């Protein structure tokens, strides 16, 4: 069974963008519904930020990838999403139109970005430590686990200065790599509860159809129905992404071929790592 995996926000924008009509159509939808042009980098909303631009770019690339796969007759038996990958996943599963997926990304992103006006936040990407010391150092510095991608690949989220200190401690503790990336808001932490009213208002503005393909969520690995979606989209912003558990559950559900739909190949690499850890043992 084929699984389409929708990645979250990329850390960088590729310098090479697609050139064809499908991409131009996606760009037009970005301009009209997300108020951002992913080709020129121009915002048509006064509160747009570089981070939200990356989020929209990521969703646009996933929508474009999904179009290409559909045109070539490749269809998923199951769909999985990582973080903001939920938005293009909803379009891919028929729960929302493409333009609504872009609009919700932009609206939600700009609301969250308000948190970054008075405080500076950062994401900390840690490779090589195991979960236990990672959680200990996160607690020491008052930052949060945002992604458990594998047993050695994690993302922390919190205030930028605290994150820089946490990354320095991670390196001292033996992390192979520990880097801080600036962000507007502390994604996947309870701190986002500060924007609860505004975010819930946005997510409840849309009518979600039941996914036409099973859509596995990254929190508890159950499949989402249309009625679950508004609540899930708020809740997932406050809780860590459990990718390793999701990948294992997908394998358990019968997925054998995994296609990453969007820019980059991080999810494929996490899967490769998880597979390598289980080689010779029971399948994940």
């Amino acid at each position, binding site marked *: 069974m084929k699984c389409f995996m929708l990645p979250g926000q990329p850390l960088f924008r590729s310098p090479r963008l697609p050139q064809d009509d499908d991409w131009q159509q996606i760009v037009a939808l970005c301009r009209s519904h997300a108020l951002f042009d992913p080709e020129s980098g121009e915002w048509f909303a006064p509160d747009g930020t570089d981070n939200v631009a990356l989020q929209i770019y990521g969703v646009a690339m996933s929508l474009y990838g999904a179009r290409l796969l559909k045109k070539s007759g490749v269809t998923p038996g199951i769909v999985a999403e990582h973080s903001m990958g939920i938005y293009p996943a909803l379009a891919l599963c028929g729960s929302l139109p493409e333009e609504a997926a872009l609009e919700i990304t932009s609206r939600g992103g700009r609301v969250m970005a308000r948190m970054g006006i008075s405080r500076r936040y950062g994401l900390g*990407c840690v*490779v*090589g430590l195991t979960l236990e010391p990672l959680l200990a150092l996160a607690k020491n510095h008052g930052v949060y686990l945002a992604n458990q991608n594998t047993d*050695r*690949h994690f993302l922390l989220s919190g205030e930028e200065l605290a994150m820089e200190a946490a990354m320095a401690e991670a*390196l001292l503790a*033996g*992390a*192979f*790599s*520990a*880097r801080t990336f600036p962000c507007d808001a502390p994604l996947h932490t309870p701190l986002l509860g500060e924007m609860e009213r505004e975010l819930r208002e946005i997510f409840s503005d849309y009518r979600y159809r039941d996914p036409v393909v099973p859509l596995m969520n990254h929190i508890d690995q159950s499949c989402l129905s249309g009625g679950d979606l508004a609540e899930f989209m708020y809740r997932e912003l406050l809780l860590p992404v459990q990718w390793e558990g999701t990948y294992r559950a997908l394998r358990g559900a019968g997925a054998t071929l995994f296609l990453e739909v969007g820019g980059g190949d*991080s999810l494929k*690499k*996490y899967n*490769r*790592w998880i597979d*390598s850890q289980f080689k010779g043992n029971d399948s994940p």
Partner: protein
Amino acid sequence: MSEELIEPVKQLIIDALRIEGMTSADIDTDAPLFGEGLGLDSIDALQLVVAMEKEYGVVVPDAATGSKVFQSVRTMAAHIAENRK
């Protein structure tokens, strides 16, 4: 001595990272592994650390050593030649 490890290291990279459609001849011995060269990232690097340890018993003890070892295929081969058991 590390010269004889160049080809096996290229193959180790291809196998550990499951790079499809690439042979060892496609990998430049002195090109950077990260960024402009093979385009690897920290996820790949950890996979290579584990593969090197499994294949040659050679460890990369910390991030600072890793940044030197993973400059190119040649630096990986040199690290293995100096530290293999």
